């Protein structure tokens, strides 16, 4: 199935196509793939993260569905 993955802040260095920038990238994955699986595939650094699927908070256990947009942030804040 097709999903989109967007990586922000320093995580954009881990884009699957190796190109710079934060635009969401298309991603082909098997049915039943979890966010945790994607994190492993992308070899993201081991740190806390903030995860969104289609604008809603998600966890590493969340199972992705066709057409989902996954956004992954490292710990960030401002104000």
């Amino acid at each position, binding site marked *: 199935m097709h999903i989109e993955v967007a990586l922000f802040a320093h995580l954009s260095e881990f884009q699957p196509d190796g190109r710079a920038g934060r635009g969401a990238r298309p991603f082909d994955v098997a049915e039943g793939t979890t966010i945790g699986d994607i994190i492993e595939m992308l070899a993201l650094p081991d740190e806390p993260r903030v995860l*969104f699927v289609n*604008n809603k*908070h998600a966890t590493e256990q969340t199972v992705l569905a066709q057409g989902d947009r996954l956004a992954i942030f*490292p*710990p*960030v*804040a*401002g104000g």
Partner: protein
Amino acid sequence: MGRELLRVDMSDLSVTREPLPEAWRRYGGRALTDAIVFSEVPGDADPLGPQNVLVFSPGLLGGTSAPNGGRLSVGGKSPLTGGVKESNSGGQAAHALARLGIAALVITGRPADPNARYLIVIEADGSVSIERKDEWAGLKNYELAEKIARTRPEDDRYATIQNGPAGEAGAKASGIAVSDVKGYPNRFAGRGGLGAVMGSKGVKAIVLSDKGLSYTEHADKEAFQAALRRFASALKEHAVTGQALPTYGTNVLMNILSEAGGLPTRNFSEGSFENADDIGGERQRETILARGGQEHHGCHTGCTIQCSRYWLDKDGNYKTKGPEYETAWSMGADCGIKDLDAIAELDRICGDLGLDTIDMGVALGVYMDSGKIAFGDSEAAIDALLSGTRDGEPGRVLWDGAQATGDAFDVAHVPTVKGQALPAYDPRSVMGIGVTYATTTMGADHTAGYTITSNILSVGGTIDPLKPEGQAELSKNLQIATAMLDSAGLCIFVAFAVLDIPDAFTAIHDMLQAHTGDAWDADALVQLGKETLVFERLFNERAGFTNADDRLPSFFRKVPLPPHDIVFQVTDEDLDSVFDWVPETAREMGLLPSEQHKRGVA
């Protein structure tokens, strides 16, 4: 050196000093500005009249080397909200005041001649002069900073507090500029129209020289240094204060709020902005570095978080600070503008004129919503803002803020509480911050109780932003903690570390105890926060505020926000619970119960 109140009466240009009253010994920063406003300003005082005061106070840790301990509180009755105002700024002024032994600089009265302009100078030896500078009338902040520099010896070290043309014009959304580490007048007590209060008192600028003055002395230096080291290492260790904020600045929030569907876009009509990444912190960093700029710096000496940055124009010259997230959002997403250079131009104009970038961006979004100019038209936005210098043009209405703009141009959706514009988080999809906007004494203000921590960022636990449960309790606790930090003089960004690392909280009271020699513990910190808020709530009651003022505009409960198609759902009962502890604490403080108090004040 003892802590003193330094009073300057602009009615007769007299200067008096008095020791800080014993009852206020444990107050600094916001607690002290509030105590003074509560004690000295009648509830019905005209904010631009002689009965109002303008108070500048460093926090309890001001003048020390405590990390991020140099924040400045500026207080008075707000011409924007009609209630109490504490507007908080970075810059160098707080440390300078504290080193001069000044717990609070209190400006009272009003000159008989409304055209008079004055420069107040406090020299490092403590002497005070008040010079008439009518020729400085109307000067913008950057030129004013240069004029001031020419009056000072070359080897001086000083901070400035300045008022721009908007404050002189009595604009209700005018702010007060404070000089940063390089002397740029680019840090702001921006919110609530305190520039107009400064203007009403005829004060164009204040110079604070601390040349040759060192850090204020500690009751127990060794204990202070030990606590300081623990606090500093917590700030370094936490991923947000140690890495994210210095690397990307506050504007790193743009993309995450857009992903969360909580980024108010085109006058709060959508929750995600399709061009968020074009105006976000990552793009900002890339652009600044490509133009030869530096990654980061602190807004005041002693800041270890270093979230400040300078924006450079296309030729690599200094343009303005940041822009900070709130400004990049208000001038950007909320106006549908997708160009950081245009946002920086608007930020520079606000900085030079002395205008609050939040209220101005929201006012522009409201103005665009009226159809007078188009969303996304940055040239028209710049023209509208600049037109405030000319009589009869729309800009002068904009300068009075989003509420005045909505009233003048008959706009249905005006996002304000108590007359002050909402900041960069939509309360429908981030319900905790809606509680803070509605209930804080300040008018809509995210910094008063920053629930974005648990609602969005997973700092200090997690509370679902799309559900009403738990939001009132979260906002209450954060409002109390924030009032404490503002009174200690600490930057509220230390909270990101404090919420996750228990020893950072302990280190705060250990620093306070070692510095002041008074006993401080966790309960005392909470008490400080509560007493601060009691002064504010009682002042607002006296000024005529009731629970009916602690509400969001009704469209937030009626008009669903995409992409979540959700409305604000926290009940009025929950909103009214946020300050239900106030009467009890007020009695503990020996203040009159509010009903008697209202009768006791003419």
